[in-house]
């Protein structure tokens, strides 16, 4: 096996809102890790949550064992948030003083905020809150980058690129390419590679 983990299991939470490609992101990342020889368990909640609700994937990475598809509270090692307040929502449950966190700053407003009933915290508040609680925090505008690439949905891949850029997991561009070439029409591979590269460069 190439590369090692700081912990067994290494716990990753990928969070976002239905429609952001959360499931796809967790699958791509996990497949990369399976190729590296790890045992990976993904726990996902979807179904009704596809429709505007929060979507969360728990990824457990271990050299040897299958772990529960639900991460115990307070034990996330890495949080990848495709949406800013989802970062905070997940921190509240799974945060701990050593957690690292990557946040896409593009907000998707909950219905309550759209209707003016609830308040959405400002980017400054979100940044400060996250930084005060995480051992390492990185912020990027993954959706904006993806829109520039021509498709906002690529935001999830920009984020995966950024995870690679953080160098907390034994994954890289070659591994990414191998995984997506396997499961994706060739025509879409190029855009995905570019999205990954942008994410990687953004946090490197």
């Amino acid at each position: 096996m190439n590369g090692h983990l700081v912990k067994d299991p290494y716990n990753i939470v990928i969070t976002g809102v239905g429609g952001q490609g959360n499931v796809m992101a967790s699958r791509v990342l996990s497949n990369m890790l399976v190729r590296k020889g790890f045992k990976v368990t993904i726990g996902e909640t979807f179904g009704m949550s596809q429709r505007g609700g929060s979507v969360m994937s728990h990824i457990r990475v271990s050299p040897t064992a299958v772990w529960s598809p639900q991460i115990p509270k307070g034990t996330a090692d890495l949080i990848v948030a495709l949406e800013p307040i989802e970062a905070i929502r997940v921190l509240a449950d799974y945060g701990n003083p050593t957690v690292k966190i990557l946040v896409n700053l593009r907000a998707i407003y909950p219905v309550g905020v759209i209707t003016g009933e609830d308040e959405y915290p400002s980017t400054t508040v979100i940044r400060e809150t996250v930084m005060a609680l995480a051992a390492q925090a990185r912020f990027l505008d993954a959706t904006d980058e993806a829109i520039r690439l021509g498709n906002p949905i690529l935001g999830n891949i920009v984020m995966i690129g950024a995870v690679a850029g953080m160098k907390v997991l034994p994954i890289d561009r070659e591994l990414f390419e191998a995984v997506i070439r396997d499961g994706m029409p060739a025509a879409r591979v190029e855009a995905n590679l570019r999205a990954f590269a942008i994410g990687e460069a953004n946090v490197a």
Partner: protein
Amino acid sequence: MSLDREQKEGAELLLMGNEAIARGALEAGVRVAAGYPGTPSSEIIETLSRFSEAGKLYVEWSTNEKVAMEVAAAASFAGLRSLCVMKQNGVNVASDFLLHLTGSGTRGGMVLVTCDDPGALSSVNEGESRHFARLMEIPLLEPSDFREAKEMTRWAFTLSEAIRNVVMVRSVTRMSHASGNVVLGALPEIAGKAAFCCDGPVSDPDCGPVISTPVVAKHRLQQEKLRGATTLFEESPFNAYEGPEDPELLIITSSVCTLYSREALSLLRAEGRTGILKLGTTWPVPPALLKKRLASAKKVLIVEEVLPFLEDQVKILAAEQAHEIGIKEFYGKNDGTLPMVGELNPDLVAAAVGRILGIDPPSVPAEYREKLTALTALVPKREQTFCPGCPHRASFWGIREALQRDHRGGFVCGDIGCYAMASLFPAAGFHTAKTLHSMGSGTGIASGFGKLGPFGMEQPVLAVCGDSTFYHAAIPALINAVHHRADITFIALDNSGTAMTGFQSHPGLEVNAMGEAAPMVDIAALCRAIGAPVVVGDPFALTETRETLNRLLEEPGVKVLILKQSCALSPGKKGKKTFLVRVDETLCRGDACGCNRLCTRIFRCPGLLWNRDRKKAEIDEVICAGCGFCAGICPAGAIRNEEAAKS
């Protein structure tokens, strides 16, 4: 990345629990698979449909679970291995047939896979299918990880052939929708011709007619076979013990709770003091194995989700054998150690084990914890609602406007599908939908309400029903309403697909689960044939929908309105905007008297935003699906639709 034909034996892949189950069936040589979509079970049939091939594997989305089970049973009678798949509620639907099927017995291996949903993550109940195994006296297998999901499903066919009866494999959401490493096994050569041998005497299990009589004799035989299965379970590798030989605490568990239990012991560092007896064969539990493990510990905790199914069995066995193994201290549901509702997780199990062993589960430093607690105030909740561009939002808007005009307190009986959101989150259905039960029940309930006029009920009654639900269970209820002249307005929300669960085919479409052309069964024609007048409309045509509804509400008897518009997420629509929608700020009345934010406050499509600073509505281009419906509701004409360029 998902399971396909190209992958080779021996490959280690990341598979979803449901894919692992499908793979197990494929490795067992399944020939016929039938199911009805329902989260969290749908991916099993979906995966199998990718492997379908004429004469080798037939896959169908049946109209409902009972029919699915009948279709699968026929294949078994003809000597083929068959699978039927459903979510927990489906077993209720199929149970009448299941009772007779388990009485008659099967021939080719037949496996029933049910996916339960503890905690109702995507259901409106957390009903359990495990109890059906006991009720129907058939074996129950429960996988605890992905590898086992595949292996168990494969073995279930062998077991079914050994006992000549259905075998039930039960998964849960956290297994079906979780993923993990699975090593692929070989796919067998498909051989064997379908033939139903039925010329022999009733007593001949191979060549007689397949019926459940003579009842007592067949029942006796069924129980004998079940005892045979129990003997096999004693040695089954699916039952395993891990931990010290004489643990302080014995955990008896199954399914995904096995993983939670392991994690709990790891969190508490209690592996040295606690043993886990993980059962893969949970009905009937193997008595000898259980006796051996019970003898080794004084304290016993049963870890399972929702009702005490294992716990009851374990306690009965322990009572029967108490003279040999001594009196035990039991922890589980009945004493409140674990909750009898909702799903479990590692933290709940760790807390339970910690209480029994006197260990505090680890937690983050108190000071840090306080900061985390403060976060909740910062995070607005995410209420669920219909998708941007969803035709159901438009339909319910039309219904609301018609009912408010009608002014007699009319209401909608809701049903199962995406549109259940209208009942679950009142604001999403504009406070019109007031009941929600099982598939098709909205129509049945409406049929009942529709007879209460002579009792003084003046409220008009509506029932809504999706296209898939219509075929599943609404038809008998609608026939009932017609025959009994119930006063109801029945609205079929036809979005051309089983959208809730991911666009599985159904009889209203011209394609089947295997992608072949299929004759479409027309809802309108069916309704007319049973004698109901039918109007077909487009929910996006607001005025027309509203006026039609108001007219129908005035008429007696059963009236049918079909609101047809494909789902915003349907493959044909997703990502394609009909209109580029924008808000003309100079016209927008915002929160002033004259509008007061109709679009963002009441209509609540996620594509519309309220800009607090400018006090104007906005369109979020990324989220807006471009349906253009909101332009028609804005009182100021501020929402503008421009024809989107066809790409």
